[in-house]
């Protein structure tokens, strides 16, 4: 998954085959169960019906995917920028780190269920509460990834650079920052999946549009088939964002694959 090395496409397909087979198998079992048991589609719709609903409501789903995507990406970009700026400050000022870290840890203990309605109450139905909630959920993992990443720097590289007369800022730029990049991307891949969930949940408690709203409306009109259709769309969105961050990592950290390929 993450440790991708360039392989022939056939090899990758063969590696993905067991996963694909288990997914297809599970969906088939679900379909067979629904057909044999005659359970009402109001309780458990068959996968075929969910897929059919995705087709019928594709305009609705598409229109509502875009707001979710923009809330996710805006909130996440905001979160990553703040986390990065702060991680640099914390790296240079250990005292600040001791002062602020407990607050960040506490921020992670706040239940989203309680904070999301409050954010809507305070900031309205626009983009702001969504950005804040996505940031609340993803900020801390990104910050920890960066701070730990800086700490992972080989001490001998730092000693070497200081022996060359490098300033602290130069050591940071040339040694500590690049050392943190693998950690940064690991954090990115995990956080981006949280970000989608946080965006959908914040829509769910109050928004004009978005996948969260589709899910809410479908729930209120007893349409589990449409709910599941929206879930499939949101999962696909998450997987795509996950894949993009993995590709980004591979493109930017090509040195990590050096020496493995031969």
């Amino acid at each position: 998954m993450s440790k991708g090395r360039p392989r022939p496409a056939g090899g990758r397909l063969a590696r993905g085959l067991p996963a694909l087979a288990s997914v297809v198998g599970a969906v088939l079992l679900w379909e067979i169960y629904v057909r044999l048991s005659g359970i009402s589609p109001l309780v458990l719709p068959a996968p075929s019906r969910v897929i059919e609903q995705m087709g019928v409501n594709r305009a609705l789903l598409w229109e509502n995917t875009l707001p979710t995507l923009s809330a996710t990406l805006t909130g996440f970009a905001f979160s990553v920028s703040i986390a990065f700026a702060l991680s640099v400050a914390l790296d240079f000022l250990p005292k600040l780190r001791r002062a602020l870290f407990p607050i960040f840890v506490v921020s992670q203990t706040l239940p989203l269920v309680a904070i999301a309605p409050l954010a809507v109450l305070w900031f309205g139905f626009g983009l702001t509460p969504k950005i804040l909630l996505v940031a609340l959920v993803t900020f801390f993992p990104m910050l920890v990834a960066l701070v730990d990443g800086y700490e992972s720097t080989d001490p001998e590289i730092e000693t070497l650079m200081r022996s060359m007369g490098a300033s602290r800022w130069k050591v940071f730029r040339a040694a500590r920052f690049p050392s943190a990049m693998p950690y940064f991307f690991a954090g990115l891949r995990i956080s981006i999946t949280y970000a989608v969930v946080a965006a959908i949940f914040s829509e769910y408690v109050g928004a004009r549009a978005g996948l969260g709203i589709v899910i809410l409306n479908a729930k209120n009109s007893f349409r589990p088939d449409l709910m599941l259709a929206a879930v499939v769309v949101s999962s696909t969105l998450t997987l795509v964002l996950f894949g993009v961050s993995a590709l980004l990592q591979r493109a930017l950290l090509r040195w990590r694959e050096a020496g493995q390929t031969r």
Partner: protein
Amino acid sequence: MRNVGVTLGETAVLDDVSLHVGQGEFVSILGPSGAGKSTLFRLLTGALAPDRGEILRDCAPLKLDGQTFAFMPQRDALMPWRRIIDNVILGLEVQGVPRAEARARALPLFVEFGLEGFEQRYPAELSGGMRQRAALLRTVIQARPIQLLDEPSACSTRSPAHRCSAGWKTAGGPRAGPRCLSPMMCARRWPFRIASMCCRAVPPA
């Protein structure tokens, strides 16, 4: 170094060490593992301050401004994310030499260090010996008056050692005569060539 002493925790790592290195001298420091050889280097690179005694250069207290020593750590400390050429020029970059100029200065030396063709590779793609030679080149190219080599074992293999010492002279250039402290363990196993490079052995503390 005059009567230098270092105590780390309860352990007296260095006790009353005095050492004089003259202009153009190669000095190798030999001693069993844990004798404090690398600690001497940590004093000279400023990673550690002596608890007792003093370190002088040209009769004045040593300034730890990064201008005096070029240091080669025990492990090569190459940056895995930089290509070899950019690892080699790290010291020049810190000195403020523009990258393009630093690369141009480094490239001709790759042949003498047995690294030709590997300029654009990443450290992970090189053998252990080649990594050591890249680290040595990174040290030599800084053209500092004194070079500190902590176990430069890359030069223990036959042919690259000849090339390395040739490269040394080239890179040292007119400033020449790099005074070099190199703590090496297991000196008896080292080829004679190397022993001749190290003209004085100082018993460790």
